[in-house]
C-alpha cells in the first residue's frame, strides 16, 4: 500500500471511529451504562449492602436450651433467661441471641429484655419441638431428627446432659484433693443445628461463640485446681505473628478485586457497543449504506473495532475508579474489619500496569464481540451470540480469583487468564513485582497475538456474504440433515473439521470416566496391561472413530478425505528416516523445556512408570504406544481435520491449525509442544505426498523410539560408554549436542530431498 492510499485509509478509519463514537455518546442507554452506572451504582450498592449487612446482622436468632437445670452454678452460663453478659462479644447486643430454656422464666430480668422475649405459647411450642428433636435423635438417629428439626423450623437446640453439673463438681473436688488421674469421660453439652440452613448456621455460630468463652472459663478453673498454668492448653504453639502491613492488607484486597473487575468490565464495556455497531446497524438498515461507500471492509471493521475498544477501556477504567473509591470509603467506615481503617489505593506504577494490561484485554474482547455480533441480524440476536463470551470470561475470572492460582509459564500464555493473573501478582506484591515481572512480555505478546487473531476473524466474517447478509432461517433438523447429505463435498469443510476436533476432545474428556479403573489390589503389570488395552480402545473409538464416521457421512470422497492413497517408497522411507533423525532433538527439547512445563503430573508419571515394567508384554506395548496412535491419530489429524482445514486451499494455515489441535489433544502439557511441532511436519508430508503413509511411517518410528528411549534407553546408556553419542543423566538417556546437531542436519537434508523428489515428479507428470 503506497502512502496516499495508506493515508486515505487511516483518514476513513478515523472518520468511522469519530462517527461511531459520537453516535454512541448520543445514546443515553450506552452513556448510562458506561459513565453514569459506575459513578452512581457502586457507591449506592456499597451503602445498600452495608445497610443490608447491618440489618441482617441485627436479626435476632433463637436457641432452645434443654436441661438448663443441669448447668453448673459456676461459671454461670445462663441467667435471667439469657446468656450471661460476660460470655458475649464486647459491645455486642444481647438481644441478638434469644434463649428459650426449659427453666421457668424469672420475673426480674425479663423486663430488661423485653425485645428478646417470646410469648409463652410460642415458648411452649418451641420447647416441645426441641424435646421431640432430642428424643428422635436418641431413638432414630440424626436423619430422622433432622426432619423433625426442619419441620418445626428450629434454629438451634443446646442440650445440657443430665448429670453435667454433678460431673463437673466431682471433677473439681477430685482435682482439689490432688488425685493422680482424673478421667474426663462425662457427657458434654452439645448444639444441635442444620449447617445447610442459613438461619440455623448463624444461630449455631453465635451460640458457639458464647459457649467457647464459657468453656474457656471452666477450663481455666480446672487448670487452676490442678495447679497448672492456663498456658498449658497451648503447649507447643504460640500465637501466630502477623507481619502484614496495612498497605499489604489493602494490596491483598485490591489484588482479588481489581483483576476480576477489570476483566468483567472490559467484556461488558465491549458487549453493548459491539451489538449496536454491527447487529444494530444491520437491523436499522444502515450497514449496507456504509458498505457501498469507498471504505473497504477492513477499514469499516477497524473503525468499529477502535470504537468498541475505547468503550471497553473507558467502562473498565471508570468502574475500577468507582469501585476503588467506594471500597476505600466503605472499609474506612468499618475499622473493626482488620487494618484499622487505613486502606490505601494501589501505587501509581501498578495502576499504570493496569492500564497497559487493559489494552490487550479490551482489544481481545472488542474483536471477539465484533466477530460474534456479525452473525446476528438484530440486537436481540446479538445478545444471544455474545452471552457465551460473557459466560466463558466469567468462568476464567473465577478461576483466576481462586486462592493459590498464580502465574506459571503455561498460564501466562492463556488469553484473559494471563493478564488477570499478572495483574493479580502485581497488585498483591508491588514490592516483589520482579518475580511476576518476567511474565510481562509473554503475557503482552500472547495477548496481542490473540487479539490479532480475533480481529482477523472479525475481518474475515465481514467479507463473508453468508454471514453479513444472513437471512433468518428457522432451524429444522430434518431439512438440515438432508441438506448436509445433499451438499456434501469432495472434502469436509472448515467447520466440519473443527467439529471433528471438538468431538474428539469431548469424547476424550468423557472417556476417562467410561473405562473401568483397575482394582485396588491389582499388580503393576495388571494395571499397565489394562491401561494399554484402554489406550488402544480409546485411540480407535475416540480418535479414529469420529474422523472415519464423519468422512463417510459428510463427504463424497472419504478415501481422498482420509488420504488413503499409496505413496512412493521414497516418501515412506523418508518419513521413517525423518523420525529417526528427529528423535534426539525432540528428546532434548522435551528435557530442556522442563523449566517451562514442570514435572509430569503425578497420574501421568505413575502411568509412564507402570509402562516401564519389564513384565508387560512388549507386543501389547508396541501396539498401544506405536501402532494404534500412528494409524488413528493420522486418520483423524492428517486425514479428516487437515483435509477440512485445507479445503479452501490455505494449506499453510491448515497445517498450523491441525498441528495446534494435534498438540492440544495430547493433554499432558509436556507432550503438547513436541506433538504440535511434529504435527507441523506430519501435516507438510501429508499435504505434499497426498498420502497418509509417510506420516504413518514417521509416527510409528517416532513413537517406537520413544518407547525404546523410556524402556531400554537408560539401561543402554548405563551399559555403554559412548558419551559422544548419548549419556545417562539423572536416570534418563540424554543425547549429546553432536547427536542432536547431526540429527537436525540430516532431517533438513531429508526434507530438501523430499521436496526435490516431489518437484521432479511434478515435472515428469
Amino acid at each position, binding site marked *: 500500500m503506497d502512502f496516499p492510499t495508506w493515508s*486515505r485509509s487511516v483518514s*476513513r478509519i478515523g*472518520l*468511522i471511529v469519530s*462517527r461511531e463514537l*459520537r*453516535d454512541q455518546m*448520543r*445514546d443515553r442507554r450506552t452513556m448510562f451504562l458506561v459513565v453514569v452506572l459506575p459513578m452512581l451504582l457502586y457507591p449506592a450498592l456499597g451503602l445498600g449492602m452495608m445497610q443490608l449487612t447491618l440489618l441482617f446482622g441485627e436479626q435476632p436468632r433463637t436457641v432452645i436450651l434443654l436441661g438448663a437445670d443441669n448447668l453448673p452454678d459456676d461459671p454461670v452460663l445462663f441467667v435471667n433467661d439469657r446468656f450471661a453478659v460476660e460470655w458475649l462479644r464486647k459491645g455486642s447486643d444481647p438481644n441478638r441471641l434469644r434463649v428459650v430454656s426449659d427453666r421457668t422464666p424469672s420475673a426480674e430480668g425479663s423486663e430488661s429484655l423485653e425485645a428478646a422475649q417470646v410469648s409463652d405459647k410460642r415458648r411452649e411450642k418451641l420447647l416441645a419441638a426441641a424435646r421431640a428433636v432430642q428424643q428422635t435423635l436418641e431413638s432414630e438417629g440424626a436423619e430422622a431428627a433432622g426432619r423433625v428439626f426442619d419441620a418445626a423450623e428450629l434454629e438451634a437446640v443446646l442440650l445440657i446432659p443430665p448429670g453435667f453439673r454433678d460431673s463437673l463438681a466431682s471433677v473439681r473436688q477430685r482435682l482439689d484433693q490432688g488425685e493422680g488421674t482424673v478421667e474426663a469421660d462425662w457427657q458434654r453439652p452439645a448444639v444441635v443445628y442444620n449447617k445447610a440452613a442459613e438461619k440455623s448456621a448463624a444461630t449455631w455460630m453465635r451460640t458457639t461463640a458464647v459457649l467457647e468463652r464459657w468453656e474457656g472459663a471452666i477450663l481455666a478453673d480446672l487448670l487452676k485446681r490442678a495447679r497448672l498454668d492456663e498456658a498449658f492448653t497451648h503447649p507447643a504453639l504460640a500465637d501466630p505473628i502477623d507481619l502484614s502491613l496495612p498497605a499489604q492488607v489493602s494490596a491483598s484486597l485490591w489484588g482479588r478485586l481489581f483483576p476480576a473487575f477489570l476483566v468483567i468490565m472490559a467484556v461488558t464495556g465491549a458487549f453493548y457497543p459491539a451489538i449496536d455497531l454491527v447487529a444494530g446497524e444491520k437491523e*436499522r*438498515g*444502515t450497514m*449496507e*449504506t*456504509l*458498505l*457501498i*461507500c*469507498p*471504505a*473497504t471492509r477492513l477499514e469499516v471493521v477497524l473503525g468499529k473495532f477502535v470504537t468498541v475498544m475505547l468503550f471497553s477501556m473507558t467502562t473498565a477504567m471508570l468502574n475500577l475508579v468507582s469501585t476503588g473509591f467506594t471500597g476505600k470509603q466503605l472499609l474506612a467506615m468499618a475499622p473493626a474489619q482488620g487494618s484499622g481503617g487505613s486502606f490505601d489505593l494501589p501505587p501509581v506504577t501498578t495502576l499504570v500496569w493496569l492500564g497497559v494490561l487493559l489494552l490487550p484485554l479490551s482489544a481481545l474482547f472488542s474483536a471477539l464481540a465484533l466477530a460474534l455480533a456479525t452473525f446476528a441480524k438484530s440486537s436481540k440476536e446479538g445478545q444471544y451470540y455474545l452471552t457465551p463470551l460473557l459466560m466463558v470470561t466469567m468462568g476464567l475470572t473465577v478461576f483466576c480469583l481462586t486462592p493459590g492460582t498464580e502465574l506459571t509459564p503455561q498460564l501466562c500464555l492463556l488469553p484473559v487468564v494471563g493478564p488477570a493473573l499478572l495483574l493479580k501478582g502485581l497488585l498483591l506484591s508491588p514490592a516483589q513485582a520482579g518475580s511476576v515481572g518476567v511474565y510481562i512480555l509473554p503475557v503482552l505478546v500472547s495477548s496481542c497475538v490473540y487479539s490479532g487473531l480475533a480481529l482477523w476473524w472479525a475481518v474475515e466474517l465481514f467479507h463473508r*456474504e*453468508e454471514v453479513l*447478509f444472513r437471512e433468518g*432461517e428457522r432451524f*429444522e433438523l430434518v*431439512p*438440515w440433515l438432508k*441438506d448436509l447429505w*445433499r*451438499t456434501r463435498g469432495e472434502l469436509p469443510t472448515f467447520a466440519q473439521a473443527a467439529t471433528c476436533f471438538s468431538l474428539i476432545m469431548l469424547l476424550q474428556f468423557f472417556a476417562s470416566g467410561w473405562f473401568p479403573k483397575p482394582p485396588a489390589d491389582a499388580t503393576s503389570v495388571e494395571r499397565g496391561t489394562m491401561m494399554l488395552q484402554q489406550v488402544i480402545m480409546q485411540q480407535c473409538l475416540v480418535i479414529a472413530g469420529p474422523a472415519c464416521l464423519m468422512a463417510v457421512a459428510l463427504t463424497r470422497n472419504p478415501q481422498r478425505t482420509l488420504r488413503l492413497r499409496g505413496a512412493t517408497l521414497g516418501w515412506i522411507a523418508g518419513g521413517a528416516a525423518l523420525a529417526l533423525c528427529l528423535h534426539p532433538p525432540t528428546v532434548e527439547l522435551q528435557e530442556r523445556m522442563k523449566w517451562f512445563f514442570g514435572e509430569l503430573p503425578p497420574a501421568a508419571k505413575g502411568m509412564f512408570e507402570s509402562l516401564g515394567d519389564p513384565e508387560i508384554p512388549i507386543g501389547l506395548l508396541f501396539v498401544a504406544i506405536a501402532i494404534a496412535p500412528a494409524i488413528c491419530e493420522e486418520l483423524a489429524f492428517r486425514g479428516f481435520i487437515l483435509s477440512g482445514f485445507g479445503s479452501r486451499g490455505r494449506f499453510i494455515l491448515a497445517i498450523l491449525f491441525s498441528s495446534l489441535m494435534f498438540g492440544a489433544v495430547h493433554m499432558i502439557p509436556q507432550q503438547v509442544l513436541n506433538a504440535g511441532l511434529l504435527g507441523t511436519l506430519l501435516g507438510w508430508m501429508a499435504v505434499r505426498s497426498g498420502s497418509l503413509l509417510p506420516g504413518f511411517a514417521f509416527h510409528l518410528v517416532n513413537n517406537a523410539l520413544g518407547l525404546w528411549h523410556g524402556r531400554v534407553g537408560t539401561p543402554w546408556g548405563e551399559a555403554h560408554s559412548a558419551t559422544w553419542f548419548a549419556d545417562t543423566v539423572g536416570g534418563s538417556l540424554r543425547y549429546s549436542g553432536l547427536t542432536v546437531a547431526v540429527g537436525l542436519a540430516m532431517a533438513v537434508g531429508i526434507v530438501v530431498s523430499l521436496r526435490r523428489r516431489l518437484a521432479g515428479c511434478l515435472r515428469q507428470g
Partner: protein
Amino acid sequence: MIRVEGLTKTFHDLKRGEVAAVDRVSFHVAPGEIFGLLGANGAGKTTCLRILSTVLKPTHGLAMVAGHNVLTEPAAVRARIGFMSGNTGVYDRMSAWEFVHYYGRLYGIAENRLRERMEEVFEILQMNDYRDLPGARMSTGMKQKVSIARTIIHDPPVMIFDEPTSGLDVLVARALLTTIESLKAAGKCIIFSTHIMREVERLCDRIAIIHRGRILAAGTVAELEAEHSQPDMEELFFDLITKMGTGPINGDTRDSGSTQD
C-alpha cells in the same frame, strides 16, 4: 457505462439447495439513460443491484461499472456510484447535515469543497429547513431526501435507485422522480428498479422485466407493448409473468441473457 453479461448469483437454501437469485442476466446502460429494472417482489432486482454496488459478489458472469470490474476493482466501482434504496440508511442520532457530511468525507471530498457542495445540494433538494434535525425525528420523505443528498453528494457518473419511492406519499414520490429526471438530463447513467408501472412509463428509456432471477423481456416500453400486443405496461407485465412464471425455470436451456438489448 454499465455492462452486465451473463450475471449469475446463487444462494444456498436448506430445502431447495442452490437457488439462482439472478440467473444469466445481461444488459447495458449508457450515460444519460435511465434503465428500468421491473419485477415483482423477490424477482432478483435487489440482488442484481447489490452486485453492481459490490456489496455481493457474482457467482458467474461479468459486471462492469464505469469501466471497472465489480469483482476485481470494487473500491473503484464504489467511488463512482451513488446507491439509493427504499431503506434510507439514515442514522437516528445524526442530523441531515452531519449525515451527508460524513459520507462526503468518506468519498474523499475536501472539507471546503464539501461544504460548498452540501450548500448546493441542500438548496436543490430544499432540505435547509431540517438540516439539523436528527434522523429519528425525520419523516419518511425527509429521510428519502437526505438519502438522495448522500447519493449525489460526490457527483457520481453512475446512479442506482432501488425502489426509491416505496413507502413515500405521492408528493414526495413525484419530487423524487423529478430529481431523477434532472440527473438524467445532467448525463448520469441511471438504473431504476421498481414494481410500479407508472414510474417506468414516465422515467425509463429502456426496461428489462425480471422474474425469478431471469430477464423475460427487454427494450423500450413502446417496443415491448407492440411486440407482445399489450395496451400498457401493467398488462404486458402481467402477461409475461403469467406465461413465463409457470414454466420451468431451473434447467431451462433458453438463454434469457440473449433476450436483451
